[in-house]
């Protein structure tokens, strides 16, 4: 059986990109409110990528990053994963909490978890409005470690059913400064058909 993800056409990919655009737009607005700063985002990128090559879209699998991970469950299931470079996490904490130490205590970690929670929550609510799907998110989990190792754990749900991941990836900006981060939306392979069905797009 050929992986259906590998047969996505340009129109279907552009639909996914638009979903990512709406979700990330809401997420950026929520983050702006939280940070009381202007936050923008770029147009999301949609990747259909094999598990063997997936670390390349993030760049530097060995780099230490902050990862916040949530599962979404309901009519459509998948994973949401916020990856922040350490400097970006420090920058966000500085604005939010006046952080200027080194190393993240439990307090900083829970603040970062809350950022992930807010981003994911607003992304999801836009997504569920759009698809009319009933979806809820798990509590977030945080880990600070090698990017590849975190991705390993996040991709477990994809790996159970597929050798290919559908990744909708957004970057955020604060003013002219890139908040060096990725926000990944990874629908479970079994949910891709449900997404297209909810949107009235043909998908074999």
């Amino acid at each position: 059986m050929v992986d259906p993800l590998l047969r996505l056409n340009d129109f279907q990919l552009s639909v996914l990109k638009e979903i990512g655009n709406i979700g990330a737009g809401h997420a950026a607005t929520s983050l702006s409110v939280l940070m009381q700063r202007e936050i923008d985002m770029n147009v999301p990128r949609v990747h259909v990528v094999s598990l063997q090559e997936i670390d390349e879209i993030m760049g530097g699998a060995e780099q230490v990053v902050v990862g916040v991970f949530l599962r979404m469950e309901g009519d459509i299931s998948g994973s949401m994963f916020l990856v922040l470079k350490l400097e970006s996490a420090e920058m966000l904490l500085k604005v939010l909490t006046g952080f200027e130490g080194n190393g993240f205590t439990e307090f900083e970690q829970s603040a970062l978890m809350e950022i992930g929670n807010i981003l994911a929550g607003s992304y999801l609510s836009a997504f569920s409005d759009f698809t009319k799907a009933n979806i809820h998110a798990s509590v977030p989990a945080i880990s600070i470690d090698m990017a590849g190792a975190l991705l390993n754990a996040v991709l477990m749900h994809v790996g159970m059913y597929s050798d290919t991941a559908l990744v909708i990836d957004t970057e955020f900006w604060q003013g002219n400064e890139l908040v060096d981060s990725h926000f990944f939306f990874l629908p479970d392979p079994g949910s891709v058909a449900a997404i297209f069905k909810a949107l009235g797009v043909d998908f074999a």
Partner: protein
Amino acid sequence: MNIVKVGMADLNVARDPDILRTVGLGSCVGVAIVDISSKVAGLAHIMLPTAGKPDVENPAKYADTAIPMLVKQMQQKGAVVSRMVAKIAGGAQMFSTLNQNDLLRVGPRNVEAVKMSLQLLGIPIRGEDTGGNAGRTIDFSAADGSLTIRTVAQGVTTL
């Protein structure tokens, strides 16, 4: 000397003096096998414990299909099973706060499945660094069978 990369759910075989590398093992397990007499080494980056069916699209993903496949590829390069020894690393739990789902215990289950598969093939384990909650990057030398493990907090160790 070349560095041969092994991606997630992937495996590869190399000869002396090459080095096999997999970057960022989380809950996945790296299985390194060497036949030191023929200086043929193999490394698999295993993602899940069992395939549950005989024909899977990517055998390199599962412990019970990847290890026999790796051994076969090593044999094709002249390695002999009775001389093979293994070292394993990985199987961490990266997100400790999530526990509602058995899937998140996949690290320890991967380690168990890997040990079972090695035992079935009669390949002894000569070194192990598994569990915990830290990501690992490993280099496996086909020249001497040494396995170098890097973590963020603990630095470098060699098995």
